[in-house]
C-alpha cells in the first residue's frame, strides 16, 4: 500500500526556517558575523524576488549594516519582509513551495526519501497486521489454553479452508490494487488512501479489543465461535477492499467535468473529460495526457512575436518636459503610459504588412524545402532493398544489417533534411544519431519513405523525442484552493513547468435529458409531389 502523506518534515521545515531567520536577524543586530549575514541576505533576496509584484524595490542593503549598531527599535525592511514571507500560512501550495525553495540546499534530497520511506513503512506494517490478525486469532487459543479448548468438529474445519482461501484472495487483491509502481509524487496526501488506512486500522484494533476482552480474558472454550469470529474478520476485510476499489478506481471513471488545457506559450488547447477527482489527481491525469497529445514545446517558434513586441516598445520614447518633482511618482508613471498608448494608437503602423509578407514567404520556403526533402528521401530509399533468402549468397561485404544500411543511405538525404529542419526551427529536437536510429528502425520494419518522414514533417508529442527533452520536467501545481479539494465547475489552476505553464479550466458536463421517439418502420411512405390545386 502506497501512502503519500504530509510527513512531519514539512512542519518542521516551517519551524526550522522561521527559527533560522529570526535567529539570524537577531544575530544581525547583536553581532556582526559575516557568514550569517550573507546567508540571510541571499535568503531574503530569494524571497523578495519570488514575492515581488510591485515595481518599487525596497531600499538597498547598506541600511542593515548601519542598523546593527543601533537597537531593535529600528525598522528594518528586510527583516520584516523575510519574517512575513516565511511565516505565511502553509495552506497554499505556493507558499509551501517558497519554503521548499528557500531551504532547497539542505532539505531537498533528504525530505523526499524520508517521505517515501515513512509511507512504505506504514503500508508494510498495516499489511502485516491485517494479514496476521486472523491467523493470530486462530492460533492463540491453542497456545494459551489448549486443554480447555473444545475439539474442532467438521464444520469448524470447513471454516479453516474458508479462512485460508479468503486470505489468499485478499492477498492477491491487495497486491493487485496497491502494489503498483508509483506514478508520481503528489504535493499533498491522497485523502482516500489515508481514510482507508485509518478505517482498516480502527477496524482491526476494535476486533483485537473485543478478542482480548471477551475471548483471551474469559478463555472461551467454544473454538468454533472463535473460528467464526476470525472468518467474519476476513469477510469484513474483503468488503473494505471492495470499498477501496470503488473509492480509488471506480469513482472517477464516470466523466463529470470537461477540462480545457491551454499551453501559455503558444495557445495549444486540448479538452479532456475527467470524473470526480481532487485537483492534484486531476492535474496528474492532465500531465499524463499532455505527454501524449500536445506537440512538443518549441521555444524557437516564439521568437518572432517577441521581436515584434520589442519593436513596438522601442519605437516610442517618453520625455517629461515639466521637470521633476511636479507630480507624485505614481502620477508620472500613469501619465507616461497613457501617453505611450495614445501615441501608439495614432502612429501609422505597417508591421502588419511585414508580418503578412513574411509569413507568405516563409510558407513558400517551407514548401519548397519539403518538396526537395521528399524527393531526396524517396530516392535514397530506392538504393537498398531487403535481401531474399533464395538469392545466391552475396559477398559478406555486400550484406548489411539495418544500422549499416541506414548509415549507407543517410548522406544522400542528410543535407535536404537538415535544411528542412532549420527552416521549420526543429533542428534542436533531432540529433544526427537519433535520425540514423529512426532510419534503421524504419528500414527494419519495411516502412515507406513517407512513413519515415512523418516524424520530421509534423511536430509530435513530447514523448516521441529523446529523453533529455522531458526527463527533467518538474511540475508545480498552482491553485487558489486546496489541492485536495475536488474539481468544481469553474475551477482554475496552473501547472507550471520551467519553460511554460498549462492553464486548466474545468466545466461541468451538463445534465443530459434524453427522450425517445418511436418510428414505426411501416410509416415510411412516399408519394409523388403533384401540383397542389386550390379552389377559390
Amino acid at each position, binding site marked *: 500500500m502506497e501512502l503519500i502523506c504530509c510527513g512531519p518534515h514539512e512542519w518542521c521545515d516551517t519551524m526550522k526556517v522561521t527559527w533560522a531567520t529570526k535567529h539570524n536577524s537577531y544575530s544581525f543586530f547583536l553581532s556582526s558575523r559575516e557568514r550569517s549575514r550573507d546567508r540571510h541576505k541571499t535568503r531574503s533576496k530569494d524571497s523578495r524576488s519570488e514575492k515581488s509584484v510591485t515595481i518599487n524595490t525596497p531600499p538597498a542593503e547598506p541600511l542593515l549594516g548601519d542598523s546593527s549598531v543601533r537597537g531593535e527599535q529600528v525598522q528594518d525592511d528586510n527583516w520584516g519582509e523575510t519574517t512575513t514571507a516565511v511565516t505565511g500560512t502553509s495552506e497554499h501550495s505556493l507558499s509551501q513551495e517558497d519554503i521548499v525553495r528557500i531551504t532547497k540546499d539542505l532539505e531537498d534530497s533528504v525530505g523526499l526519501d524520508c517521505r517515501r520511506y515513512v509511507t512504505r513503512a506504514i503500508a508494510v506494517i498495516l499489511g502485516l497486521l491485517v494479514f496476521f490478525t486472523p491467523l493470530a486469532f486462530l492460533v492463540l487459543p491453542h497456545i494459551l489454553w489448549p486443554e480447555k479448548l473444545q475439539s474442532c468438529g467438521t464444520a469448524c474445519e470447513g471454516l479453516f479452508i474458508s479462512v485460508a482461501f479468503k486470505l489468499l484472495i485478499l492477498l492477491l487483491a491487495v497486491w493487485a490494487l496497491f502494489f503498483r509502481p508509483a506514478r508520481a509524487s503528489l504535493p499533498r496526501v491522497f485523502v482516500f488512501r489515508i481514510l482507508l488506512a485509518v478505517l482498516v486500522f480502527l477496524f482491526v484494533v476494535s476486533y483485537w479489543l473485543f478478542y482480548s476482552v471477551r475471548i483471551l480474558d474469559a478463555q472461551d472454550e467454544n473454538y468454533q465461535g472463535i473460528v467464526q469470529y476470525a472468518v467474519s474478520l476476513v469477510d469484513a476485510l474483503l468488503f473494505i477492499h471492495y470499498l477501496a476499489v470503488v473509492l480509488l478506481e471506480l469513482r472517477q471513471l464516470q466523466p463529470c467535468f470537461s477540462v480545457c488545457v491551454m499551453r501559455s506559450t503558444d495557445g495549444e488547447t486540448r479538452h479532456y473529460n475527467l470524473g470526480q477527482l481532487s485537483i492534484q489527481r486531476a492535474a496528474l491525469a492532465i500531465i499524463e495526457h499532455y505527454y501524449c497529445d500536445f506537440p512538443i514545446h518549441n521555444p524557437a517558434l516564439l521568437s518572432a512575436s517577441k521581436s515584434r513586441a520589442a519593436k513596438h516598445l522601442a519605437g516610442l520614447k517618453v520625455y517629461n518636459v515639466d521637470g521633476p518633482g511636479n507630480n507624485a511618482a505614481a502620477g508620472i508613471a500613469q501619465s507616461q503610459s497613457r501617453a505611450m498608448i495614445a501615441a501608439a494608437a495614432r502612429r501609422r503602423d505597417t508591421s502588419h504588412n511585414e508580418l503578412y509578407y513574411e509569413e507568405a514567404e516563409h510558407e513558400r520556403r517551407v514548401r519548397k524545402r519539403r518538396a526537395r526533402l521528399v524527393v531526396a528521401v524517396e530516392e535514397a530509399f530506392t538504393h537498398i532493398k531487403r535481401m531474399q533468402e533464395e538469392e545466391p549468397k552475396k559477398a559478406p561485404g555486400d550484406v548489411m544489417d539495418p544500422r549499416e544500411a541506414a548509415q549507407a543511405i543517410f548522406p544522400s538525404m542528410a543535407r535536404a533534411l537538415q535544411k528542412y529542419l532549420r527552416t521549420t526551427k526543429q533542428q534542436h529536437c533531432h540529433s544526427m544519431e537519433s535520425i540514423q536510429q529512426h532510419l534503421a528502425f524504419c528500414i527494419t520494419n519495411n516502412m515507406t519513405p513517407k512513413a519515415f518522414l512523418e516524424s520530421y514533417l509534423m511536430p509530435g508529442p513530447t514523448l516521441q523525442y529523446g529523453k533529455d527533452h522531458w526527463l527533467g520536467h518538474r511540475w508545480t501545481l498552482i491553485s487558489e484552493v486546496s489541492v485536495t479539494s475536488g474539481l468544481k465547475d469553474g475551477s482554475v489552476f496552473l501547472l507550471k513547468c520551467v519553460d511554460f505553464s498549462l492553464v486548466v479550466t474545468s466545466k461541468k458536463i451538463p445534465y443530459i435529458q434524453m427522450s425517445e421517439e418511436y418510428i414505426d418502420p411501416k410509416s415510411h411512405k412516399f408519394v409523388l409531389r*403533384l401540383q397542389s*390545386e386550390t379552389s*377559390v
Partner: protein
Amino acid sequence: MSFVPGQPVTAVVQRIEIQKLRQGENLILGFSIGGGIDQDPGQNPFSEDKSDKGIYVTRITPGGPAEVAGLRMGDKIMQVNGWDMTMVTHDQARKKLTNKREDVVRLLITRRSLEEAVKQSKGSHPRQ
C-alpha cells in the same frame, strides 16, 4: 408563353372581371388554380413550356361566376387586381384571389388561342 429571364414578358391578354358569389360566409369565384414558383412545373398539363411556374386555371365550376365571366380551363393568370401573378407562390396567389374585402376580381389572363388569333389577324391585315 415562355419568357427569357431578364427581358420583359410580353403576352396578349384578355381582361376578365368576375363577381364573387356569396355562399354562406364565403366569397367564391368558382375555379381552381394550380402552379406557383414553389410548385413542380413539370406536372402542369396546361403549360406550353414545362418550366413555366405561372398560375394556371385547372378547373372551372360549371355555371359558376368564373365561367359566366369567360374564364376557361388552361388559362394562365397574369394579374389579379393589379397584382402580378407570374412570379408568386401558390399560397400568395390564393391569398390575392380570396381577399374578403373585395367582391370583384379583375384578371388579366392569357391563352394560346389569343396569340393565334392575333397572329391570324396580323397575317390577314399586314400593316402598311
